[in-house]
């Protein structure tokens, strides 16, 4: 036990005390206690103490804040809110000597899996020679017969694999599972590293920590090298934002410079793959697939898939698109497969597995089944192919000893009829690592996910580190992902100085560019609507604020004229934000304001409802928005203070979002669509406001409200000292091109954007949306505040709507919906 004589701020003393107080069970094995050289752990704790002080709880919260900042979100399936995946402040420290063994084993395993997959979908010798029963292959839902005979472009079925390892009581590492279908977690590893690097800043220099960047660079090179064209366009194919690792996929796509695409963004024409972009169809050469392989192509696999790309497998067979990993490869993920890997390794490579599996017996073989039955109490019985089976409680793996008599009888009966559905596996006891619980270090069992990817030469590279999953339970197979789980960074360090990695390519090989390339139509659509919703919400909030008398105009006095209040209420009813005003007492005004601001019941189109839509669009635009914007979009609806306070808080949020998009978004086509959405919506809202408050019988109160809604009170006062005059207000709000809130200003920006966005033909003729914008510009330029009336404003409004439609038709995905052709009558 370290003494307390030293200053509490002495990080070394604090670290020693933490380590000394840590009570891991020695018998079980612990990654820190057993470390051959505890130096790495101690340095790490010193850094933790140096940055967070004495409180481990503070350290934990700091790490979590960093992780939240970086934007890790983990969606629990079926939940519409993204939940943060808690990050442990304490990384798993591994020395490079130990790591070298893991790396060697993972590479051997990846090569072995490739050999097996290539044989199963190729010559089929393993099954024909009796090394692997056919039923071990056909039992997997990921055995995809249409892939047979297809040699993947680039020559490999596997490009990216992950292996789950556990550390046993004596420090030996063993494989629990292989992931080739969608190796989730590389993005989390990346994010965890960023968060930990921020909290443990000094670690890098003191411990020779191996970096992540080279791995991702080589992964990218590996996929590029597999493609046919020299400068391929690569996409990360996501099932969409409801997928539980969408956040990770968006992060990876942004980090790797891949397009984040869904099936509907892509099309196969003449056996080539294309992405629908704002500049037309663009060739795609490779996909990192994160959708389920069976849903990838309705013409090759599940014909009911609505997220697939018809013809993709034909394009792959024609050699025109690389799909990583090849569909069907996941057949090797089945637990039943593990039973055969040791023998297959010996047979195919002449050596045993460097990283052994946990021992597995496939019950489809008589002798193995008999052994499982004999040793049932001490075994885990699990579904052989991951799919539910009849006789396991809840279909989950279970330790034999924990079965009730009735459950055991049911299992034994099904083992008679369908032994092929089961494997027996030895029970594993996981080593622990320290985590922070209630301010103290506590041991928790963990597993380690390691990632390997092919580099440009086709050789496997292993991410130094990875992703540790920490659970409450000692055996990871018995817990579902999600509840009660933490993740931790994994730091590989060693005596040899790590070369400072430069991701800067040599000058002569670098192709300079100033835009991020192709903007998929869907991304443009989302950014456009994000802009529209944000303006829509802000405009609605403006109405709510004037209803509550939040004018800076002294003329308006404490309360607005009754007729003006009625007009405001009408405007709120018109947009569907609230039911008609019941009376003019303050309580009724506040009630209406509250409904318009936060009601999500009865279908009121409130600020809150609009913000939800914006939030959803923010979630799907993660790869194109800054973390600050995402955070503001994700912020919960304010709950503190009265209605006016909340309105103020929302107003500041909108202002911050507008500022971020104006000042922090690169001037890309994506930004143009976002701003275009904002301009069109603001122009529409301004026209509406003028129609409500600026045309006939406009009182001083009406005009003051109009100035408030157009955020132009101050501009007006600077120009006119004489009080409010209708023509002057109209000119400022509608026609003054120097007023950034005026209609004319929006129309000018719209025309600019449409002139700058790509056109499809090079014939020099204006496209429809450009023609409509030109008409609008002319209407506004020739208008006169003295004669501007409802008719002209309604015409402008109609033109704006036509413009929005023309933009959608020209740039966005829309129109034809896929129908399923199915022709059958049955008798």
């Amino acid at each position: 036990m370290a003494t307390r004589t030293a200053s509490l701020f002495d990080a070394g003393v604090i670290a020693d005390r933490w380590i000394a107080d840590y009570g891991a069970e020695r018998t079980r094995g612990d990654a820190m206690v057993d470390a051959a050289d505890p130096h790495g752990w101690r340095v790490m704790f010193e850094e933790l103490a140096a940055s967070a002080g004495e409180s481990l709880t503070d350290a934990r919260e700091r790490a979590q804040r960093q992780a939240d900042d970086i934007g890790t979100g983990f969606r629990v399936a079926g939940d519409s809110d993204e939940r943060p995946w808690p990050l442990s402040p304490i990384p798993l420290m591994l020395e490079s000597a130990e790591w070298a063994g893991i790396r060697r084993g993972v590479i051997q395993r990846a090569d072995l899996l490739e050999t097996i997959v290539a044989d199963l979908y190729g010559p089929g010798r393993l099954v024909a020679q009796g090394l692997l029963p056919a039923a071990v292959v056909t039992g997997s839902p990921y055995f995809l017969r249409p892939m047979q005979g297809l040699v993947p472009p680039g020559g490999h079925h596997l490009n990216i694999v992950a292996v789950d390892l556990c550390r046993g009581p004596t420090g030996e590492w063993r494989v629990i599972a292989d992931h080739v279908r969608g190796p989730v977690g590389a993005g989390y590893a990346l994010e965890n590293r960023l968060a930990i690097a921020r909290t443990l800043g000094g670690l890098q220099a003191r411990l020779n920590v191996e970096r992540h960047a080279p791995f991702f660079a080589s992964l990218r090179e590996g996929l590029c090298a597999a493609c046919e064209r020299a400068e391929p366009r690569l996409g990360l194919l996501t099932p969409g934002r409801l997928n539980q690792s969408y956040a990770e996929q968006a992060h990876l796509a942004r980090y790797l410079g891949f397009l984040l695409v869904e099936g509907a963004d892509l099309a196969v024409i003449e056996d080539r793959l294309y992405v629908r972009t704002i500049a037309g169809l663009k060739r795609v050469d490779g996909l990192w697939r994160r959708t389920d392989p069976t849903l990838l192509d309705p013409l090759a696999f599940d014909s009911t898939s609505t997220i697939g790309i018809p013809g993709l497998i034909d394009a792959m067979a024609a050699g025109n698109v690389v799909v990583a990993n090849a569909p069907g490869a996941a057949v090797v993920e089945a637990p039943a497969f593990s039973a055969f890997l040791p023998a297959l390794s010996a047979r195919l490579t002449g050596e045993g597995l460097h990283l052994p599996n946990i021992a597995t017996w496939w019950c489809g073989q008589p002798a193995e089944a008999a052994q499982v039955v004999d040793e049932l109490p001490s075994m885990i019985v699990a579904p052989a192919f991951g799919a539910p089976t009849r006789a396991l409680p809840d279909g989950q793996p279970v330790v034999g000893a924990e079965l009730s008599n009735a459950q055991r009888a049911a299992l034994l009966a099904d083992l008679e009829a369908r032994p092929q559905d089961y494997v027996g596996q030895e029970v594993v006891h996981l080593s622990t690592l320290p985590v922070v619980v209630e301010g103290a270090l506590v041991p928790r069992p963990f597993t380690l996910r390691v990632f390997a990817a092919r580099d440009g030469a086709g050789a496997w590279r292993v991410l130094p580190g990875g992703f540790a999953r920490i659970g409450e339970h000692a055996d990871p197979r018995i817990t579902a992902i999600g509840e009660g789980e933490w993740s931790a960074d994994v730091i590989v360090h060693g005596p040899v100085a790590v070369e400072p990695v430069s991701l800067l390519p040599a000058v002569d090989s670098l192709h300079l560019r100033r835009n991020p390339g192709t903007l998929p139509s869907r991304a443009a659509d989302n950014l456009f609507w994000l802009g529209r919703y944000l303006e829509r919400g802000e405009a609605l909030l403006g109405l709510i604020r004037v209803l509550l008398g939040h004018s800076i105009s002294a003329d308006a006095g404490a309360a607005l004229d009754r007729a003006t209040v009625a007009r405001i209420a009408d405007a709120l009813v018109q947009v569907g934000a609230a039911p008609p005003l019941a009376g003019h007492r303050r309580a009724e005004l506040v009630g209406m304001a509250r409904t318009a601001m936060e009601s999500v019941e009865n279908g009121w189109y409130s600020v809150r409802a609009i913000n939800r839509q914006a939030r959803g669009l923010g979630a799907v635009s993660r790869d194109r928005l800054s973390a600050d914007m995402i955070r503001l979009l994700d912020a919960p609806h304010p709950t503190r203070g009265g209605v006016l306070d909340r309105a103020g808080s929302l107003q500041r949020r909108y202002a911050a979002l507008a500022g971020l998009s104006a000042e922090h978004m690169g001037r890309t086509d994506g930004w143009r669509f976002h701003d275009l959405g904002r301009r069109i919506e603001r122009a529409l809202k301004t026209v509406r406001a003028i129609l409500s408050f600026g045309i006939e019988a406009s009182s001083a109160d009406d005009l003051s409200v109009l100035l408030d809604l157009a955020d132009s009170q101050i501009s007006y006062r600077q120009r006119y000292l004489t009080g409010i005059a209708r023509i002057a207000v109209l000119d400022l709000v509608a026609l003054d091109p120097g007023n950034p809130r005026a209609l004319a200003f929006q129309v000018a920006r719209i025309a600019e954007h449409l002139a700058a966005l790509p056109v499809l033909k090079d014939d020099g003729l204006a496209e429809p949306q450009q023609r409509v914008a030109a008409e609008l510009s002319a209407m506004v330029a020739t208008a006169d505040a003295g004669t501007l009336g409802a008719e002209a404003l309604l015409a402008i409004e109609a033109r704006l709507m036509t413009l929005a439609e023309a933009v959608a038709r020209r740039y966005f995905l829309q129109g034809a919906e896929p129908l399923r052709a199915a022709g059958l009558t049955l008798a």
Partner: protein
Amino acid sequence: MMRYAIRHVTRFDYAETVDFARCNLRLQPIDWPGQRVEDYTLNVTPGGRTAPARAQAGLAHVTRLVLDRPTRELTIESVAHMTVERPIPIPAADDPTIAAVGALARASRDLSPLSPAAYLYASPRIPVNEDIGAWCAPDLSSERGVLDAAIELARRIQREFDFDPTATLVDTPPAEAFAKKGGVCQDFAQIMLCGLRAAGIPAAYASGYLRTLPPPGEPRLVGADATHAWVLVWAGEARGWVGVDPTNGIWMAEDHVIVAIGRDYGDIAPIDGIVLGSGAQDMHVSVDVAPQD
């Protein structure tokens, strides 16, 4: 021996123009023990391109149809001339038992779509279902001969389920048809497959045609036949695949013509794919199985 002229016409009418279609057609019958295709013609109007598809999941002739021309109507006509010579199987005392066929299938070294190992497991449209397994189990004790057991089960399904075309649709899962105790050929085939597989018996979905006989004294109605579905049971190397029709409680014999074989409907759907359009579609199917003299 029977000779048939089979004409299967499917017409789609689209409310709005469609200008893009990619379909898999599995309409050309396969050659199979006991049946031979003498000649075959596929006609698609309007034109479009047809070519053999590169790969397939089951035992089927798959033709890929590519249509890039706008159309409001699509007609697919499949005409086959077949000979069928298939004796009715007779269960024998030395047939392999259910336990034996399961063990043989588990040890199979054949990964092809002919392998019993390919039909041992639940499939996408026929998931594991305990209730169906339990209902079928009394006929499927492990020491019973597999053919004897299969025909008993088929007969029980035929007896205890109602033939009711209004009860189910082509996408109705077996559990629902089982709960309703009614349906059509596919429902009965799926229920039987679910039960056979629960007992560890390799069993495949067969789709095709069944010659129907007119009521006594009435003429045969042209075009009134339908596509049919039944079950193939693997009965060991010597017997191979044997057909059983749970809709009628009979063996597959010379009235049955196999078009395709798979794990379930997903592998053998006569027509499926993607059509891009915005309106509704209307479908009309006519099937005629005409015996030739």
